[in-house]
């Protein structure tokens, strides 16, 4: 009960936020958090709930980002056309990649998802028509989203829908099966579930949601470049999910907020006591992120191992 109340309070605050603080910087920053939270939540579905350690999730985010941007670049200014197309493209990519990758397991699955993501990275990198390795800058957002406030609400709506959708999904028949598969895949098959089909469906849903995040990401900055598909981006999303809580409803959101918040904090608020030792410390925030992540993995294993109670050799 307390959790429901807390959720409504947070939602109310989020809704009221732009009215209280219409300052562009914070609005934009909050929107960015929502978008990454959506991306991380979509990965959480595949990784945390489905147990699929996909290192190629950035491919779907990137597909959404690029397809929607290409529509804009070609003059289609309406989101009603470009955005569903982009999400559908991401879902299709997830279907194709998942269909092949899910035939493997364990480390081979990790490798093959990573390889596919790299393939997409290189493919996009060589698309000279759409910026190649320099990326694609867009003159404007889709119709109606020019204002930061409008974008903020759209991003918030997308995140809220995704989290609510995940909430319902987790308690649905599908959710039960997926979590059972994560828990004990062999037995799930042995009681009559065609495991491959369920994993693929979960993978596609996660990919589609990731695609939506990509759409918003590109729209937010009016810019997209191949780095959004690089495997290290998948890594970043994974870090968000791990920090926030694998397999937990708010894992993606908390993780994204924590990581981006930390990054911002370090970057814009100079702590003199650190600066006296390391004058340039603010430029090396990712070292701190790395150290924190390493510490979590090494010393707070319950956080990760707890959610992954399956046997070691998957």
């Amino acid at each position, binding site marked *: 009960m307390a959790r429901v109340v807390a959720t409504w309070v947070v939602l109310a605050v989020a809704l009221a936020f732009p009215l209280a603080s219409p300052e562009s910087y914070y609005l934009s920053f909050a929107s960015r958090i929502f978008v990454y939270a959506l991306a991380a939540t979509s990965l959480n579905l595949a990784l945390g709930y489905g147990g699929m350690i996909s290192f190629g999730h950035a491919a779907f985010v990137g597909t959404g980002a690029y397809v929607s941007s290409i529509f804009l670049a070609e003059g289609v200014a309406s989101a009603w056309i470009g955005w569903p197309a982009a999400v559908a493209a991401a879902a299709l990519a997830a279907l194709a990649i998942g269909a092949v990758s899910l035939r493997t397991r*364990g480390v081979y699955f990790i490798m093959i998802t990573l390889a596919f993501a790299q393939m997409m990275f290189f493919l996009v990198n060589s698309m000279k028509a759409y910026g190649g390795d320099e990326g694609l800058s867009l003159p404007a957002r889709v119709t109606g989203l020019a204002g930061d406030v409008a974008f903020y609400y759209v991003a918030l709506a997308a995140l809220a829908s995704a989290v609510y959708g995940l909430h319902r999904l987790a308690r649905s028949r599908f959710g039960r099966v997926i979590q059972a598969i994560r828990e004990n895949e062999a037995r799930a098959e042995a009681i009559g579930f065609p495991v491959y089909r369920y994993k693929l469906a979960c993978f596609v849903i996660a990919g589609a949601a990731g695609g939506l995040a990509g759409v918003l990401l590109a729209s937010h900055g009016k810019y997209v470049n191949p780095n959004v598909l690089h495997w290290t981006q998948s890594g970043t999303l994974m870090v968000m999910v791990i920090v926030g809580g694998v397999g937990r409803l708010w894992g993606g959101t908390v993780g994204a907020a924590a990581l981006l918040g930390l990054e911002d904090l370090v970057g814009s608020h100079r702590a003199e006591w650190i600066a006296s030792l390391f004058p340039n410390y603010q430029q090396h925030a990712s070292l701190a992120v790395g150290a924190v992540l390493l510490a979590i993995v090494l010393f707070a294993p319950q956080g990760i191992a707890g959610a992954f109670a399956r046997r070691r050799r998957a």
Partner: protein
Amino acid sequence: MSWVLILEQTLNGLQFGLMLFLLAAGLTLVFGIMDMINLAHGSLYMLGAFISAALVQATGSFVAGVVLAVPATAALGMLLEMSVLRRLYERDHLSQVLATFALILILNEAVRIVWGPDLPLSMPAALSGPVELLPGMFYPAYRLLIIGVGAAVALLLYVLVAHTRVGMLVRAGASNREMALAMGVDVRRLFTLLFGVGAGLCAVAGALLGPLLAVQVGMGENILILAFVVIVIGGIGSIRGALVGAVVVGLVDTTGRAFLPLLFGHFFQPRVASAAGPAIASVLAYLLMVAVLYFRPQGLFPARG
């Protein structure tokens, strides 16, 4: 498309492949024996390149720089193993992935702090010219050196693994780890040693490729994926597989990038060819890996029976 060009690109592919082998060899052993995914392997390659560049600057001698960088990087590798990596052997693959990913972040920034985003490293003047391999066919001397060093190291590794006690322990560990442990192999020391060797090999590759590919932060990430592709194709735990896989990937990647766009140009419109050619060429190695995973998932030369 002259045969000179073909020969040249083939040699380039062989050269790249041999360097990939140096990375893949260490990686496949760590993975095969310790069952550990080490994403930070590429960072050791980067460290090797940076240390080499720094030493070359300090000593003024290319050879000194490269030769000294190898034990230095090996030592760092062993230090890394003893402090962090050995805690990950018993953990699940996801934890290993995350922890070594964290190491990539840390090491990238650490290098940036110590040396900045990049360092210049140029090939020794004596080797910067071409060598006439065949009448009318010239090939860069430096690249020949790389091929030579790569082949020599491959031979050395073969001798080590096939004809020494340590090598036998390594092979035993790769084919059946539990058995090797049960037979009382001093696992801890073996692992640390293995890591050091792997790091040393990375350093050789990093130092030699530095003048060709630019010594910069993040150089490890790009080549790391290819190294994983190599070991998947070759078979996890197998040095022979790593060699074959690396040479195949090196050739496919290099010749593909060189010739596929030309080939496409023969069959397709120039606009399509210039877009599709390079795009597909760059993913050929990955497509190869996917094919291997599909048809022969244990790789070409699986170490485990």
